């Protein structure tokens, strides 16, 4: 959220930086033409503070150095007034510039560290949710491998019989080919998922994305005996979105729903995925479960970083989910489900309005 607002103000940043660079010569002129008694040079602080956060640390130091130099130059060039007062004023100005620059740089460094930590956490959360999927992916790949190895052994045995039973050998070879294809399909899906990183927007059919996501989550859903109902309006227009990120949004919500259903008896573990056209050029997708649900007072906090109800969670899943949805120009929200469980909604614009 924070990041997006900042990115959105790109022209504001340019304006601030421009202002800083215009201010510097103005202050120089003002400081030079006025008497020694007027400490015009302290206004350099304004320019430096404007530039902080827009220039690199080195850039800020260079600017401060320039300001100090100009202050001294003004001192030499100022035609009127008391030289001693001018000297003191210049000294105070230079000290103020030095102290301000030092403090500003410290803030910059701290901010950079905080930013780094945030990037790192996003990556960790991504790895964590991938980790949860890994078990299910490993199972998905191991099944066809087992079938291949076993069919291979069976085929060899039929071949070694006297006389060899070629029909049965062929049957096993056919199964090996089919299972190898099955394993490579799983790998292809995982690679699409892992490519992540750079956002590539394309026309995406929601039905396909839901189907792909469910394919990947299938083993996990089946293991937890979760029934999934899908209700997607076939006439929905395509959305401009990053397919992989959209899969991540869906799989995060499905993963959360599955977690919430673990406390329920196996007969009533149900997840419903719906997609409808919204009121303004948008599609609204909902993921509804009849699990343990959310308390109303949690609804506002649960998208915040580090908010979690899970013992092993780090509370980044929904934060990432929200940042993806918002990067797509959509919104995400949740309601308690009636009579039990939770319902998560997210909207996606059908016209690509985000200039990003």
């Amino acid at each position, binding site marked *: 959220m924070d990041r997006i607002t900042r990115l959105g103000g790109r022209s504001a940043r340019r304006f601030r930086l421009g202002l800083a660079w215009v201010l510097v010569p103005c202050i120089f002129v003002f400081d030079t033409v006025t008497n020694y008694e007027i400490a015009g040079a302290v206004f350099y602080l304004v320019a430096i503070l404007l530039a902080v956060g827009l220039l690199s640390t080195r850039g800020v130091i260079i600017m401060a150095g320039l300001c100090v130099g100009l202050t001294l130059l003004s001192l030499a060039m100022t035609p009127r007034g008391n030289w001693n007062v001018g000297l003191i004023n210049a000294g105070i100005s230079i000290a103020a510039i030095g102290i301000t620059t030092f403090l500003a740089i410290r803030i910059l460094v701290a901010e950079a560290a905080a930013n780094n930590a945030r990037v790192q956490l996003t990556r960790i959360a991504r790895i964590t949710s991938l980790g949860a999927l890994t*078990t299910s992916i*490993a*199972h998905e790949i*191991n*099944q*066809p*491998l*087992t*079938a*291949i*190895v*076993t*069919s291979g*052994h*069976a085929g*060899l*045995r*039929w071949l*070694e*019989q006297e006389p060899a039973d070629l029909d*049965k050998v062929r*049957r*096993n070879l056919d*199964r090996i080919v*089919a*299972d190898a294809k*099955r394993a490579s399909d799983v790998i292809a899906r995982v690679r699409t998922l892992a490519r992540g990183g750079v956002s590539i927007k394309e026309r995406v059919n929601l039905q396909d994305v839901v189907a792909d996501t469910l394919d990947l989550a299938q083993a996990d859903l*089946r*293991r937890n*005996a979760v029934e999934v109902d899908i209700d997607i309006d076939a006439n929905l227009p395509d959305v401009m979105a990053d397919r992989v990120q959209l899969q991540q949004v869906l799989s995060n919500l499905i993963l959360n729903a599955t977690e919430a259903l673990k406390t329920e008896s*196996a007969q009533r573990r149900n997840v419903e995925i719906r997609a409808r056209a919204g009121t303004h050029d948008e599609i609204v997708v909902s993921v509804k479960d009849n699990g343990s649900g959310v308390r109303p007072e949690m609804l506002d906090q649960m998208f915040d970083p580090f908010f979690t109800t899970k013992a092993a969670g780090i509370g980044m899943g929904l934060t990432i989910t929200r940042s993806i949805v918002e990067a797509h120009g959509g919104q995400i929200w949740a309601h308690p489900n009636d009579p039990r469980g939770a319902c998560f909604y997210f909207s996606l614009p059908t016209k690509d309005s985000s200039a990003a």
Partner: protein
Amino acid sequence: MNSNPSEVVQDAGIVYIVDDDASVGEALADLLGAAGLEARLFSSAQDFLQSTRPDVPSCLVLDVRMPGMTGLDLQRQLIALDLTLPTIFITAHGDVQTSVRAMKAGAIEFLIKPFGDQDLLDAVRAGLAKDSSDRREASTIAALRERYASLDAREKEILTGLVSGLLNKQVAGELGISEITVKVRRGQIMKKMQADSFADLVRMMETLRRT
């Protein structure tokens, strides 16, 4: 790899395979078929429970992870129904906790997918052998029970006394009958129980008491 003739001849029995993955199940059935074993395939634990199974030595090849009833659930259910079969678990994950639980509940093998054919066949053959010896023992015990039931109350009293190590005279004293009667009755007991010797009789009683 090459199946020697004795391998093919010896196996009379049925191997039940329960795996929700059709491909894995079919491959397993095919492998067992190639090794001269009869295999029956079920795609879920429920299907297996509902099937009627002939009264022949058999064993179970069971997938751990299945939707609905898992392999471990099925094992528990079979134990509860007193339908224990030698069970070979197959699983994708070598998860220690699960394997310990399965082995504690009496599984004879826990194979990690993908596994070697000989490992599976060895386990299956061990399972079938165990089931046929279990069955033999069960029928021996049933016969013993029947013979014991044919004894009358007094004979049972005398038998208990004798087996506990008392002499004829002591048994007679304890039950208030003559030593001659005890000797005659002892002969009848041996005949009814089809015991070749007194030591044999003691062994039989030991077996009965154990079960």
